[in-house]
């Protein structure tokens, strides 16, 4: 029996063959049917968007049916990973911009020849590119504005129309707000280690010089730079100084952290500009007139704060689809102007087509959109999934005091170097 077990183990060890992707591939749909996987199509706020997109596609490609399969977001990339390993799955799939897509470009069709006409109309392509090619068309933009509870500013005797411009002014304002209203400065959730991503990207343009920022995005990241180190020092200092809401390591960004902002327990939250955790969500609980948006405070003198944003979500085409041109046409319909306008109107998302009129959404949305022209990609999106995962754990260890900033930066530099 033991001998048989040893032979089996040896055979498996020597064989060591098998492929994650597999040589065989098959389409989820057929020539007259396309299957789309996403996590949006079950959302009522996306219903009008999908109707417009389907209508646009039906006009271009009559006779081709489209089936949307809404997957639970928590399981989405696990399910997608299984489909990619099998070499079978949907023809078109939704992705978050950045590492989620870049890790899987081997399974995708480069869309560059198909989306030439959309190049100038849409923004956020960089987050859906890799190896010099484009793999998805952006639907929304994702970014990290610092939202403000203007009422707390007024209650504390501060002028919300003259928000703090430097980090020191920001801390002073926070101290005043805490003393006079009891509210904390930042609603910060870090249970999954996600808080550091928002913190890094929201404050990064106020800490890094223009050159450092550009180098970071280009992959030449100097983790030993004093300006990079300053962001991670502020991450720990802000918590120890009581700027954050309590228990960030046990508080989830979604929905605990945003709930604390909405309930007036914190004066600021680093939120989003896609369809959740944004001005429209907050407007359900706060008076829309009390919600504002703040440029990143200047941390390093001479730094030029800008809005951090990238492509938020976008649709890509699987390499096993029998007719990539057909699937690419559906992707183009899913980022057509009318469809994106409906998505913005119903979900509040800042769409990838920045020519869409957002004036009806109020001043906060208009201010966010006006920041896009001078905005730059978010710092954390440039990092690999592995480095982001490590950064999430280290951010928790920094808050609990089990690692120093220098140790954390050394580990991050090593992870970033190894890819």
């Amino acid at each position, binding site marked *: 029996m033991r001998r048989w077990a040893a032979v089996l183990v040896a055979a498996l060890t020597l*064989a060591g063959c*098998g*492929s994650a992707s597999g040589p065989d591939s098959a389409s989820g749909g057929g020539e007259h049917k396309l299957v789309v996987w996403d996590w949006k199509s079950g959302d009522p706020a996306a219903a009008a968007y999908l109707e417009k997109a389907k209508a646009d596609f039906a006009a271009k490609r009559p006779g081709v049916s489209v089936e949307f399969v809404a997957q639970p977001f928590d399981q989405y990339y696990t399910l997608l990973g299984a489909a990619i390993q099998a070499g079978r799955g949907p023809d078109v799939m939704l992705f978050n911009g950045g590492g989620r897509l870049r890790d899987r470009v081997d399974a995708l069709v480069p869309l560059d020849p198909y989306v030439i006409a959309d190049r100038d109309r849409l923004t956020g392509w960089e987050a859906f590119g890799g190896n010099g090619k484009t793999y998805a068309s952006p639907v929304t933009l994702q970014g990290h504005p610092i939202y403000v509870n203007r009422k707390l500013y007024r209650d504390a005797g501060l002028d919300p129309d003259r928000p703090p411009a430097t980090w020191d002014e920001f801390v002073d304002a926070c101290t005043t707000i805490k003393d006079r209203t009891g509210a904390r400065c930042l609603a910060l959730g870090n*249970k*999954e280690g996600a808080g550091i991503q928002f913190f890094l990207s929201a404050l990064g343009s106020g800490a890094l010089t223009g050159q450092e920022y550009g180098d970071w995005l280009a992959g030449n990241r100097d983790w030993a730079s004093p300006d990079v180190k300053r962001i991670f020092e502020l991450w720990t200092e802000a918590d120890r100084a009581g700027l954050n809401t309590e228990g*960030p390591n*046990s508080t989830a960004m979604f929905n605990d952290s945003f709930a604390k902002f909405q309930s007036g327990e914190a004066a600021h939250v680093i939120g989003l500009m896609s369809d959740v955790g944004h001005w429209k969500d907050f407007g359900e609980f706060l008076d829309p007139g009390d919600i504002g948006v703040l440029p990143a405070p200047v941390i390093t003198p001479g730094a030029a704060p800008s809005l951090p944003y990238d492509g938020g979500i976008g649709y890509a085409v699987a390499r096993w689809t029998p007719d990539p041109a057909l699937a690419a046409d559906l992707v183009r319909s899913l980022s057509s102007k009318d469809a994106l306008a409906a998505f913005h109107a119903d979900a509040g998302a800042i769409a990838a087509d920045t020519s869409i009129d957002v004036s009806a959404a109020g001043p906060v949305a208009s201010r966010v959109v006006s920041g896009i022209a001078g905005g730059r990609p978010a710092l954390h999106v440039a990092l690999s999934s592995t480095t982001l995962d490590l950064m999430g*754990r280290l951010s928790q260890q920094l808050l609990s005091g089990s690692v120093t900033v220098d140790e954390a930066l050394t580990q991050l530099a090593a992870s970033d170097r190894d890819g």
Partner: protein
Amino acid sequence: MPPAGRRLRAERLAPYALVAPAVLVVVALRLYPLALGVNFSFTGDGERDGTAVGLDNYATLFDDPLFLGALRNVGLLVLLLPVAVAIPGLLATFIYLRVPGHRLFRGVYFFPAVLSPVIAGAIFNLLLAFDGPANALLGTVGLGPVDWLGDPDVALFAVVGVHVWATFGMALVVFLAGFATLDPSLLDAARIDGAALPRLLRHVIVPGLTRTIQFVFVTTMIGLLTSMFGLLYVMTGGGPGGATYLPEYYIWIQQGQLDRPALASAASTVLFLVMVVVGLLQISLLRRSGRVD
């Protein structure tokens, strides 16, 4: 009537034919996928997808402090096992000895067993929140707040505590079934001799329930090692700083979040081997006690 030789052969083959469906199901749905998974663990991820990499994935695993931490946490769970078994054992004893309200307690203790881990986790997320009722209660007695889920020294104990709360109902039922086999005259005799509860436990109940205790040890151990994913996912997300990672959570992160299925297969194989070792130890214990009986 068939000839004697054919009848003899049919009788000899009948057991194999009867067992065959079960064997086929086990081989096709358990052993074959297991072999595929083990085989897959010797291939690469990403750019090395599909190529044989030997033991590289295992080298990566045992060089990863996160995976080693997850294995250390398995060791901690083994140390906590006696507590997880003692709690339902003691409570079952109280019910068996008919403490006032024992009928009510039987239902109350069993109730959490019908909750999914996600629901139990969500309930305790609220109770154990930094500004939640558990800390408010501590505050009323003058004790400082505890970051139950955000302190790396406390979080795993908090999650294991919730797991024990959520699952001890099943062990309690098994214990009560074991008590049904206990000879009440032994307890009566001990009481007449003036034995108090600790002596009853030590000299009558524990020896009388040896097999039941061993069975609960086995099932509780398997539960602790393989059924905590839901709670970890909801309560801590593996944090803070990886302090509550267990191998199955690590496997899920590598496969689902970091797109490294071959590395996840290697971790699955290691977890399987751990379970095999634990299982074999437990089987040998049960066999030994069987011989004593």
